[in-house]
């Protein structure tokens, strides 16, 4: 555990005094302290291109009054610096008349171990694996023209001190291993990307040469793309594979169900609570409590224990995801969804692991039922305009479906749909739910946070596929 006051002229007592003084007439707020260590090692173009270590230490002082958030942060943990921040907050919230809400639920659960993954494997061991990845891929297929592989490891220690001295802490490990491979054949180039990760040690993912399966998957995707034809353009049926394609759920409905957009009535979902927003059989949850998952958190960045939040149950909209501020203003409770990228940022309601639960259909049934459409197996990034509800994502592995059979692979195309109506177009939900491999980062208001997704295969009746073949 980090002792944030050890090498500072600021004592814990001083800090508590300043916090309580700053927040006495506010509705909420806290001092958030963070110490993070991260490491990145990159192999690219046959060489170890980069080995970087970084350490970041800082605090953010937040005062919340009614709808107003005043925030000040610094990477200097000192008496002077905290007092300056306090002054800054007080000058914004001049006539504060709030009542500080001390209530914060407690938890004894932990969803990951107190480890520092960076220290659990030596630099030489990591470099050795990256070099093996490179030679394995280049030996396996002569068409391999470029290999990029990297390790990203992080340990983040946080401490939250609330008015009155209540203290909450968490230590969060996070690792990621990624492989990108580019093939060139007859003058044509295509890439394949695959990765794994979560809140465990590297060895939990890389035991017994299991890095090979990551390489194989990246190579398989690249090889499929090398044979791809131009994608069709227009509206058609779409079958989504299980696992990572659930970023469709994340983009299409996840963001629109975050508390802030609904309090501000800028989400297309803000007036649909209790109403049918999806086909029967569609249940979507956002779960921060799955052991060792990338999107899991023991407590959120306001100190609230995370939970399994039911967003849509059998087609009916049940809950939004809330941090403390939006929960208070919407007269509900925090769902433990208050997150921030680091101490430089304010808390926002965010997703954790967003999952669509199993139905009764099989993927075979779905494909058989499609006369003309596409089967999308893997995606790159996605994006949503939560106001108009329109969202997109990019296929990185997809096939055409003709008369109930999977045909040729098609080039990467963007798919576009309408969030509030897309889930009503879901006509089959599979029984093959899968978690993603642990690689997602969600961006909102300039802040990136690690998230997870999961879903079974699903059949969507109508989506626009952005290919070039009319």
């Amino acid at each position, binding site marked *: 555990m980090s002792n944030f006051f050890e*090498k500072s002229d600021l004592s814990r007592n001083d800090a508590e005094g300043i916090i309580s003084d700053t927040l006495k007439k506010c509705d909420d707020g806290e001092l958030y302290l963070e110490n993070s260590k991260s490491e990145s090692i990159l192999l690219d*173009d046959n*060489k*170890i291109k*980069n*080995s*970087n*270590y970084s*350490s*970041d*230490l800082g605090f953010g002082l937040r005062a919340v009054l009614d*709808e*107003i*958030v*005043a*925030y*000040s*942060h*610094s*990477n200097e943990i000192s008496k002077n610096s905290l007092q300056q921040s306090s002054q*800054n*907050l007080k*000058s*914004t919230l001049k006539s504060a008349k709030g009542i500080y809400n001390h209530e914060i639920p407690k938890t004894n659960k932990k969803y990951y171990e107190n480890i520092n993954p960076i220290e659990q494997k030596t*630099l*030489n061991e990591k*470099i050795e694996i990256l070099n093996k990845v490179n030679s394995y891929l280049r030996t396996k297929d002569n068409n391999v023209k470029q290999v990029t592989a990297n390790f990203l490891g992080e340990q983040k220690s946080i401490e939250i001190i609330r008015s009155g001295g209540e203290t909450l802490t968490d230590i969060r490990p996070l690792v990621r291993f990624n492989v990108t491979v*580019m093939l060139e054949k007859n003058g044509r*180039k*295509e*890439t394949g990307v695959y990765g794994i990760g979560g809140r465990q040690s590297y060895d939990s993912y890389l035991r017994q040469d299991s890095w090979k399966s990551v390489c194989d998957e990246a190579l398989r995707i690249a090889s499929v793309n090398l044979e791809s034809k131009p994608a069709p*353009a*227009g*509206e058609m049926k779409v079958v989504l594979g299980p696992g990572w394609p659930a970023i469709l759920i994340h983009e299409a409905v996840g963001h629109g169900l975050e508390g802030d957009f609904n309090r*501000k*009535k*800028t989400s*297309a979902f803000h007036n649909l609570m209790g109403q049918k927003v999806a086909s029967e059989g569609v249940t979507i949850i956002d779960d921060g409590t799955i052991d060792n998952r990338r999107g899991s958190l023991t407590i959120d960045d306001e100190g609230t224990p995370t939970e399994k939040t039911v967003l849509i149950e059998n087609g009916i909209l049940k809950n939004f995801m809330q941090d403390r501020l939006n929960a208070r203003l919407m007269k509900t409770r925090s769902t433990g969804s208050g997150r921030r990228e680091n101490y*430089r940022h*304010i808390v926002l309601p965010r997703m954790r692991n967003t999952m669509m639960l199993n139905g009764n259909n099989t993927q075979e049934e779905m494909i058989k039922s499609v006369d003309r459409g596409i089967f999308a197996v893997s995606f790159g*990034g996605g*994006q949503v305009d939560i*106001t*108009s509800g*329109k*969202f*997109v994502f*990019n296929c990185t592995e997809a096939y055409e479906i003709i008369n109930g059979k999977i045909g040729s692979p098609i080039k*990467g*195309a*963007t*798919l*576009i*749909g309408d969030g509030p109506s897309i889930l009503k177009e879901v006509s089959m939900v599979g029984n093959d739910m899968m978690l993603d491999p642990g690689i997602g980062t969600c961006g909102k208001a300039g802040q990136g946070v690690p998230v997870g997704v999961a879903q079974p295969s699903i059949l969507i009746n109508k989506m*626009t*596929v*952005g290919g*070039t*073949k*009319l």
Partner: protein
Amino acid sequence: MIKDQEYLSEKASYCLDIAKKLGASDTSVVVGNSISETVNFRNQKLDESNRSDNLAVNIITYIGKKKSSISSSNLLKENLDTLIEKCVETTKKTPEDEFNSLPDKDLLAKDVKDLDLFDDTNIKNENKIEYLIRLEASASSNKKIINTESSFTQDKSNFILANSDGFSKGYKSSSYTASSVVVAKDDKSMERDYEYTSRCHFKDIKDAEELGKSAAEQTVRKLSPKKIESEKISLIFDKRIAKGILSTFAGAISSSAISRGTSFLKDKINQKLFPDGINILDKPDILKGLGSRSFDSEGVKTNTLKLVEQGVLKDYLIDTYNGKKLNKKSNGRCGGTSNLYFDNGNISYKDLLNSKSKCLYITETIGHGSNLVTGDYSVGATGYLIENGEFKYPINEITIAGNFVDMFQSITLANDLEFEYATNSPTMMIEGMVVAGK
């Protein structure tokens, strides 16, 4: 107050000394400080204030051809000592790479040009609030606007880049940014759009009323959009989207993408990628330019580059490492382009709109659909249908797709270039792209 040159230089030279003592043969260090103050308004009321004071150090140590780096926000001596020791130790264990080195000494910038990038004006929070009140009043005066979120940010920063070859230079810069994101609603739809202004000097930013009015008008215009049939059609890209296509081009000619072989523009030097009359320039010494700089992130001097002349690709964006790989000298583009722009075309905006009986005008794209390896492009889009030069109705939930190789050959530019951002383009038409709709 941001840290002065003296404080930053002292820290930088401390790092260089320690690294040398611990066995680094070469070292490069950046010490920077930035202070950013933001006030956010929502529906004409104060919503958030945010002050951020960031101090950061980045150090690269070399031992011969071995290299490693560290970064930290903690500049206390004992922390720097520990980190530099870790960096040097890591360097020893990192395999050699023959192309690793500091930049050639004769390419380093000799002086820091005065490009007028710093404005000493301090806009206090109450003055930011005053600006935002006027901005939001103007945006909200339109009855169809149901939500407004606006912000004003003042950024001040200072840095020193130093290396063990004796380079040690830096300079202050500032920016003032105001933005407004508004939501409009009618009985059929809800739409969002934005407007923003960003300048090095406070007096150059757009007027608050004008900004609010423009954000509101652009948003209201998008209400009740239609989806159109899939077809092959000419597209006109609004300036704010056209500059994105220019950025994609810049990504594809970066020496890193070229040397790694992962760009669709590899081996295309001296080939004609665009029609006659198309010129692309990167000009680092524009006074008060948002992308202006005296040297790149390695200290290499920057001159104006004519990347494309009369449609022909003339140069890549080259840094030291990838330059050595490609057997070329760095042209001072480590960290990317400076003020990148397409020269004006020969046709007015109005004539461009009139040049087709039917086309689409694209105002926003979403998604990350640019593939630099293949040149394939496919993104979600929002815009308007234009018939005989007139805006007919808004459209959305469509995608636009093509391949950059074909798209570049089919570009026509208007003559309405303005320097609003670091990367700028006149309004752009690209013929024969595929739109997927119904």
